[in-house]
């Protein structure tokens, strides 16, 4: 081959390599950035006066006097609206029947929207659910809800070709000429005085329990559950996996049974995770009855099975990569087989084994399917270590799915969903970083 052709080939190869790395970095950025930005909103946002009242009443946090003082100021700012409503109800009596009925209907649709924005109006009975007891606690949500107060939606079917068309009708027009009409103007201008948004950092999102199906509170039980499940899976998978790898590399000869076993292990790594989930249910819960109901224990065992092939494979590779000369040197010094493995081969293989363990850890933390039937519930309190043997737990991957699909008000709790996703990604990233650091330190010690 000509020199110029060779150079051209070399250059195009490195260009393709560089390009693919750049593409990977970009897609990672595209993935991570929105998650980080939206997830951060679970932690840092503009909390309203309602947020502070909720924190005081549901979690006992904050300065009670300050919150009461703020509530008084908010109530004062809200008073014109309350007065307008009362005046409106009084003047309804004097209206002609047809108009009164129209106004009553309009008020019936306005009132829940208003209550969602500002909380129950004075004189109403205390609602049973916490979600109805407070106005919007987050300013971004409050602005959305304000739009629902300001406008009602109508569907325009006049053009049959286009189907229904959404039309926003200002409610102020519905109430034109009544005592309620100025209230819209007042809200428009004084909403910030009523809700009093203030930048809030909510670090306890990570540790708080959820109140009223994640309408309020944090994701503490989910984070704890994920940690339990991940650590539990490691507890079972790492010793079994590493010992199996040692057996396969150092003790097992090359025969049909062993090569068959290796094939099985590789196949196991490719089995869909939902199959592991069903197997876990059938085997650990229904057959072995490791716990009376779904439990962290059963989930950990199932996850351990799922990651076992990865752990074995990675450990095997790492053990095989240890220079033969180390083994020879140790044996020549009169070291027994086991001493050679424990004192020489295993330490030298540790960085590689750790990498495998970390990859598996990330997988165990993020898997949803295996825990659906064996460990996960939608709502729960943080478990004590002893309870993990018998109790199910909420866990991040399952609750992300659950809150995004099966929650009664999916749209209201987007910040919780993103917060969970962000936390899960950060958790896995953190685990990886810790292991990379750990691995680097060991590798440095080995290199000298």
């Amino acid at each position, binding site marked *: 081959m000509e020199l110029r052709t060779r150079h051209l080939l070399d250059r195009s190869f490195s260009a393709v390599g560089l390009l693919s790395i750049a593409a990977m970095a970009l897609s990672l950025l595209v993935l991570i950035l929105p998650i980080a930005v939206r997830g951060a909103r679970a932690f840092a946002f503009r909390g309203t006066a309602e947020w502070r009242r909720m924190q005081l009443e549901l979690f006992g946090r904050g300065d009670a006097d300050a919150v009461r003082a703020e509530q008084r100021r908010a109530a004062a700012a809200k008073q014109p609206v309350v007065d307008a409503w009362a005046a409106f109800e009084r003047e309804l009596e004097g209206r002609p029947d047809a108009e009164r009925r129209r106004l009553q209907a309009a008020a019936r649709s306005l009132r829940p929207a208003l209550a969602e924005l500002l909380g129950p109006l004075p004189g109403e009975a205390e609602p049973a659910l916490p979600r109805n007891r407070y106005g919007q606690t987050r300013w971004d949500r409050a602005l959305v809800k304000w739009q629902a107060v300001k406008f009602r939606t109508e569907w325009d079917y006049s053009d049959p070709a286009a189907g229904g068309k959404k039309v926003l009708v200002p409610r102020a027009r519905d109430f034109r000429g009544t005592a309620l009409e100025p209230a819209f103007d007042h809200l428009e201008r004084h909403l910030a005085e009523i809700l009093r948004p203030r930048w809030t950092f909510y670090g306890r999102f990570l540790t708080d329990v959820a109140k009223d199906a994640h309408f309020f509170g944090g994701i503490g039980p989910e984070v704890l559950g994920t940690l339990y499940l991940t650590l539990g899976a490691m507890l079972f998978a790492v010793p079994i996996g590493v010992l199996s790898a040692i057996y396969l590399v150092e003790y097992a000869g090359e025969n049909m049974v062993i090569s068959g076993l290796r094939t099985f292990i590789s196949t196991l790594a490719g089995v869909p995770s939902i199959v592991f989930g069903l197997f876990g249910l059938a085997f650990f819960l229904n057959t072995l009855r490791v716990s009376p109901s779904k439990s962290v224990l059963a989930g950990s065992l199932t996850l351990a099975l799922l990651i076992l092939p990865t752990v074995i494979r990675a450990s095997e590779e790492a053990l095989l990569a240890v220079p033969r000369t180390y083994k020879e040197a140790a044996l020549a010094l*009169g070291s027994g087989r086991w001493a050679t493995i424990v004192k020489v081969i295993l330490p030298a293989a540790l960085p590689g084994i750790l990498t495998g363990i970390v990859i598996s850890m990330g997988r165990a933390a993020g898997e949803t399917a295996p825990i659906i039937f064996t460990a996960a519930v939608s709502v729960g309190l943080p478990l004590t270590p002893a309870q993990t043997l018998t109790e199910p737990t909420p866990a991040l991957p399952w609750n992300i799915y659950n809150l995004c699909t099966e929650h009664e008000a999916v749209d209201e709790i987007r910040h919780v969903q993103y917060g969970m996703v962000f936390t899960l990604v950060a958790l896995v990233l953190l685990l990886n970083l810790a292991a990379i650091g750990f691995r680097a330190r060991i590798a440095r010690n080995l290199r000298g």
Partner: protein
Amino acid sequence: MTTTPATDTAADRARDTVPTARPAHFAAAPAGPAAPGGDAHVEAEGFSIFYRATEAVKGVSLRIPRHRVTAIIGPSGCGKSTLLRAVNRMNDLIPGCRTKGALRLDREDVYDPRVDVVALRRRVGMVFQKPNPFPKSIFDNVAYGPRLHAGGGRREMSDVVERSLRKAALWDEVKDRLEQNALGLSGGQQQRLCLARALAVEPEVLLMDEPTSALDPKATARIEDLIDELRSTYTILIVTHNMQQAARVSDLTAFLYEGVLIEFGVTNRLFTKPEKKQTEDYITGRFG
């Protein structure tokens, strides 16, 4: 001896100035595979080694005397390393390797099924072709063997490590950095560390498989000096490619060709007046 003043080493000087270091029966001993008599430390009798169907070492008989340096020379693939590795049964690691005949250490058959291989390897130390220190500290490298066999406190261990490093003439170079990783040492230092590591177990026999083939001439000279110093306390078997080295360091030399022991005798004699034509051809560089 075919040494020139330029390659004159301490080993040669020592032998020249202290002729009494060699017992009289060496000079009197008949040359050839029958081997010099006296107190044989390692003895092979009709000893063969097979790799599956291939016979790598063919019916070798020789008696290696105690506290002497015996060199095994021969062209590549002649089975010299295989023979060496039989003495501490390192060949056990190779699947399909089996032996025939007898190989004895102090009159005990090394391949007797009752032999504790771990105990055998404690008596027969080994230094490999390429320096292979563990990726641990210098101290831990030397202490590896002693720690396996005796518990011993840190204090005792320090003594063992110092003694071994001194024997390997490495102490002065590393005494201030015993806790540093052994892989940070130079190649020559690493090989001396491996020697110290082997000596720390206090073996009787020391096997050296081309111990200087990966080293530069200066480091090689140091190792050769060390072999000379160790000859009074250890039975040393050294496999080498380098005939000058064999001539410099050994008392006895065995010439192996295609698995067969062609000639075995006092080094001086073998190199100056070889009995067999093949030996002469090899040492004069006509093949190999």
